[in-house]
């Protein structure tokens, strides 16, 4: 198993926004994973994962179905806590703090680490209430403040112009692509630092996919983004770094240009060139 560690040289000082809780001149990576092992019952889902996710960049995770990409994501926002019989060992450091420490509040963690799911999952509420959901549960009551957050989030998710006249329409009446951008807006509204996207385009048509990819490009200025995808072209288009998972192991991790053009591992090469399996 070969693990490439990247020491990112990204200057985050101007991109950090007001979200980050750490010194903005810090050059270290946003997420640092050390010796992560995950079992579902007796099944080993992830084996000895070591990876450093760079700050304010897009990291793509690729690999065949069932290789552990989604499990990996769900470890970092601790959504795996909800699956019974899951055991996790190792460390996941978010801004240097292990998120599995007993004093970590899962609710605060999940606010910092937003997630967009594979299937668009808007709540059966209005467009406005979907986006306002996060701020509301975190205590924003002021109506004009909520309206402002909703507008800003929808604008950032490139959905505002399409829904500004129908904010009180049910979100379920939107198209699939609009629903997915709504879900992104919903996540942005809680001002996360990290954004997970678990195959966000898998149920969308090519035009909606292109819009989401443009969106990812514009969002990486402010957020650390991790995207899981089955689409090699998409991974090479949108990501700065790429990690290749296979059967619960991280086979290779590096700059996307390198992983896709000069992979170090034979298995990575086979997979990205489509000769796999």
């Amino acid at each position, binding site marked *: 198993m070969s693990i490439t560690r990247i020491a990112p040289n990204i200057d985050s000082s101007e991109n950090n926004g007001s979200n980050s809780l750490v010194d903005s001149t810090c050059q270290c990576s946003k997420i640092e994973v050390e010796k992560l092992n995950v079992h579902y019952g007796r099944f080993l889902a992830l084996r000895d994962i070591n990876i450093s996710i760079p700050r304010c960049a897009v990291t793509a995770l690729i690999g065949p179905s069932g290789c552990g990409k989604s499990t990996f994501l769900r470890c970092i926002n601790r959504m795996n806590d*909800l699956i019974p019989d899951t055991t996790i060992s190792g460390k996941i450091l978010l801004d240097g703090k292990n998120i599995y420490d007993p004093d970590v509040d899962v609710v605060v963690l999940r606010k910092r680490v*937003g997630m967009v799911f594979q*299937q668009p999952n808007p*709540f*059966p509420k209005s467009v406005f209430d979907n986006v306002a*959901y*996060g701020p509301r*549960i975190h205590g924003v009551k002021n109506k004009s403040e909520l309206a402002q957050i909703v507008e800003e989030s929808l604008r950032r998710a490139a959905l505002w112009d399409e829904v500004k006249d129908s904010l009180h329409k049910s979100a379920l009446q939107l198209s699939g692509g609009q629903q997915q951008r709504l879900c992104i807006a*919903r*996540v942005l509204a809680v001002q996360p630092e990290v954004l997970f996207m678990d195959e966000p385009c898998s149920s969308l048509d090519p035009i909606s996919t292109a819009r989401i990819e443009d969106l990812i490009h514009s969002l990486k200025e402010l957020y650390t983004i991790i995207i899981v995808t089955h689409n090699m072209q998409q991974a090479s288009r949108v990501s700065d770094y790429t990690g290749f998972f296979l059967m619960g192991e991280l086979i290779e991790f590096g700059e996307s240009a390198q992983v896709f053009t000069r992979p170090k591992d034979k298995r990575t090469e086979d997979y990205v060139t489509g000769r796999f399996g």
Partner: protein
Amino acid sequence: MNPKARSEKLAFALMFLCSLVVIVPALIVVAILVVRGISAINWSFLTQMPKNGMRDGGIMPAIVGTMYLLIGTLVFAVPTGILAAIYLSEYAPKNRITQAIRLAIVNLAGVPSIVYGLFGYGLFVILLHFGKSVLAGSLTLALLILPVVIAAAEEALLSVPKSFRDGSLALGATKWQTIWRVVLPSATPGIITGVILGLGRAAGETAPIMFTAAAFYKPNLPKSPLDDCMALPYHLYVVACEMFDSPPNLQWGTALTLLGLVLCMNLAATLLRAKFRRSKNW
């Protein structure tokens, strides 16, 4: 005709016959009730007090009493039932004790209503000194329909897609916020349907209220929850079985009114369910 097609035809005919056996008697009952009772029903029958020792006049106090009992039942059974369902579907550990509780609830739904009536009499009327009252009757009826409400609410909660819960939790909502703001609103239609069906059952039951709430005859309406009241099903029992000289159209009219009330509630539940089923598309 080949033998396969013939046996199939035969099977279908048999099934059709069976469904007729179920439907026809029910239709006959309704038809007779309507034919014989409709002449008794008019505005004064529904709005006047009984007169002349219940041999004349209206059944207004029985209608009002049943309404009071239903409101009381609603107040006691709905919050309790929903909270119990939330506990069972969202919080209870998946172990044998929970399974036993669930089994007990299912079995409670099959307990004969006279048992509830006697239990309510012992607990609410005697032990807690509520006397024969709207309060005791409502509590007894609430116990009777709780299993129905819990089962319907739990099923409605479990049918809310996991993706809604995940979406909410991933935004940093607590479990309770997720339940209160996402799961419960999505489950509301199913819960309402269950509640109305339960109330429909409570409206028609005689045994649970005959020792706990229902008065044979009461010349005025109950003034407090601790007063007893007249109620439609018990009034029907009284005019049909306890009095030998009550005019038949009064009996038919009472029966038709009760049937109409219960049918209306069931119809409302069905319509609501259909409406919500159309509007939800997940």
